[in-house]
């Protein structure tokens, strides 16, 4: 493997409190002192930023079951193009990843065809159906880093309690999609002013808030980590904020689309704005931005959910939920939060690196010599227009086509190899 020497980069290594211009060397797949390199390829990164590789806690790779929309190969290429060196693969594939065999298949396929690291995630319950606990211990042995029923939510609180308690004994964090089923039933968008004006059935914010509250109570009682996926309402955020102040082991992630779009977008009836949880009101969006700023939200995760054109080109009510997000996450968040003056770049980098790492219980998200060489290079000065035809993903279901953004991923390095370069 070729040695690499990155020169003159603004190195942002949040874990070790570094934000300075310097050089970083890579040899044999790990980070090396520049002086130890013999004959590296020299890459000048003047004006660019280098950080540990981004981690996405929430990606749907659709393999097995819906490979028309995405595969492990194309999904990881998309991740690389988005600056991600590691992704957590959601288990709601068909069949669901609720058993060691499925996890092993994912690990092998990813090792063979994946462009970036794929962390498997196992189901909490069999089939993700919310009725019977899955073989959590066996899933741990097979290599899952976390548990989730994403897409659905355990409605039986007694069962959820058992799952959290049992997961604790295996030190597996829970990633929960919080949705109380009766308050959101039949809904296709946020229940609020716009669902009323447009005549759509709404998904009430309280559907998320009730389950967030449940999860906080369980995390407190059991003393284990529950991570709230794609948090979206003002009230949910306030509950998490108070819980964290009390020392309860609850964390939350925000998606780039919830940070940049609102329910008013639905008036165009474009199914590329339909996802679950839905786009919320402007007030919720502002609360989410404030939560990123004050540390209530410690991770940004895309909930990358590919769908074929055919699947999405139907009546709004009938369209599946979900949009892709790997290749637009960084520029959207940079434009909204850093260029928008809400937080500084190192804080944003933390949401893509140390924040997700901590949730997974990883402690190696830095650029110390000897660390696995997973690196992301971005250009904070670049301005461009998002063009979905350039995506590496198989899918095109994005609401951001044609949007002007600032901040661009330049290069992604996984295990010392360049997997994406502009």
């Amino acid at each position: 493997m070729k040695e690499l020497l990155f020169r003159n980069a603004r190195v942002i290594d949040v874990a070790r409190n570094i934000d300075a211009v310097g050089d970083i060397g890579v040899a044999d797949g790990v980070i090396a002192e520049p002086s130890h390199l013999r004959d590296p390829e020299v890459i000048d990164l003047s004006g660019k930023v280098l950080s540990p590789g981004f981690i996405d806690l929430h990606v749907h790779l659709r393999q097995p079951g819906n490979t028309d929309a995405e595969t492990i190969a194309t999904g990881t290429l998309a991740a690389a193009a988005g600056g991600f060196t590691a992704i957590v693969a959601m288990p709601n594939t068909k069949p669901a990843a609720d058993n060691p065999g499925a996890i092993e298949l994912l690990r092998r396929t990813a090792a063979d065809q994946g462009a970036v690291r794929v962390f498997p995630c196992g189901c909490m319950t069999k089939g993700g159906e919310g009725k019977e606990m899955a073989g959590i211990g066996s899933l741990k042995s097979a290599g899952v880093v976390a548990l989730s029923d994403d897409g659905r939510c355990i409605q039986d609180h007694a069962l959820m309690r058992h799952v959290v308690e049992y997961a604790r004994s295996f030190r597996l964090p829970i990633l929960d999609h919080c949705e109380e089923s009766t308050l959101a039933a039949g809904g296709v968008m946020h229940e609020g002013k716009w669902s009323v004006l447009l005549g759509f059935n709404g998904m009430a914010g309280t559907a998320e808030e009730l389950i967030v509250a449940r999860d906080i109570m369980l995390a407190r009682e059991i003393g284990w980590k529950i991570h709230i996926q794609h948090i979206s309402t003002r009230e949910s955020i306030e509950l998490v904020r108070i819980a964290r102040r009390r020392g309860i082991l609850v964390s939350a992630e925000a998606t780039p689309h919830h940070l940049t779009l609102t329910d008013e977008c639905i008036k165009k009836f474009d199914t590329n704005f339909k996802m679950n949880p839905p786009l919320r009101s402007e007030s919720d969006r502002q609360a989410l931005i404030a939560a990123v700023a004050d540390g209530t939200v410690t991770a940004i995760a895309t909930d990358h959910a590919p769908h074929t054109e055919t699947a999405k080109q139907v009546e709004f009510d009938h369209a599946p939920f979900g949009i892709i997000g790997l290749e637009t996450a960084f520029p959207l968040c940079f434009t909204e939060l850093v260029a928008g003056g809400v937080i500084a770049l190192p804080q944003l980098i933390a949401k893509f690196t140390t924040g997700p790492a901590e949730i997974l219980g990883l402690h190696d998200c830095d650029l110390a010599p000897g660390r696995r060489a997973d690196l992301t290079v971005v250009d904070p000065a670049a301005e461009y227009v998002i063009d979905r035809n350039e995506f590496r993903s198989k899918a095109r279901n994005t609401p951001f086509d044609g949007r002007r953004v600032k901040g661009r991923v330049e290069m992604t390095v996984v295990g010392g190899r360049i997997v994406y370069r502009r």
Partner: protein
Amino acid sequence: MEWNRKDLLSLYDLSGAEIEFILDTAEEFKKVSQRRVKKVPALRGKTVVNFFVEPSTRTRVSFELAEQRLSADIINMQAQTSSLLKGETLLDTVRNIEALQVDLVVMRHSTPGAQAFIAKHLKCGVVNAGDGAHSHPTQALLDLFTIREKKGRIAGLKVTIIGDILHSRVARSNIWGLLKLGAEVTVAGPSTLVPREFESIGVKVCHDLKTAVADADVVNLLRIQHERQTIGFFPSTGEYARFFGINSDTVKLMRPDALIMHPGPINRGVELTGEVADGPNSVILEQVTNGLAVRMAVLFLVAGCVKK
């Protein structure tokens, strides 16, 4: 003022001037149905497809008659007989229809935005005959026509809409049309069916019948049904009739020349008593007559739109 839209999807999209233009055009078409020969050759040689994915009798018959009086050739398609049942997507179905070189599609669907969705993909014009709870522009236009004909204007009138506003496309389209033409709009009914969010666009929200109809110039009653989608929202039609049904005593609270309207079909004894339905304030049957004129005008304008 000239018309330049290939589709009529929602009154939300139109300006007040465009709405008035349709009503002015409809005035002339109303006269056609009063002549000996109730037909004009305006759409002769044009093919109109009535694509009713959500079934309907009254609206479809009204559109069909309007199309016949414009001398158009008509095809009727219902969901039960269409290829949607066989798993063909909506987009593929309408593309197949367009491949037959039709000029206009009049479509009703049970979900919001379906017509807006297909109109983007079709070269021929699309007239929305109802899309879920979102929009029913021709119904609102005929309601506006009726009010304007009787009262001479819309601006400044106090109009109250009573019923299940939450699930009603008739209510939504009427609200947009009335606001754009300068009326004062109040919506009233059970609090579970009349969301406060309408206040954000300048509509008064009311849950007390007497307050809602006091000094009203026009009262528009929506059909209420205790069915699958509304069962959890209110206890029974009996209770609804008690608190929101219009009878002769309620009429006394309105202006003496107030109009009582209803999109039909009426539930005698629920939204209104038989006495009120047949009484001097009711213009319910005139709405039906006006519906024909308005639909003729809409079809004429949309068909005559300049092709890009």
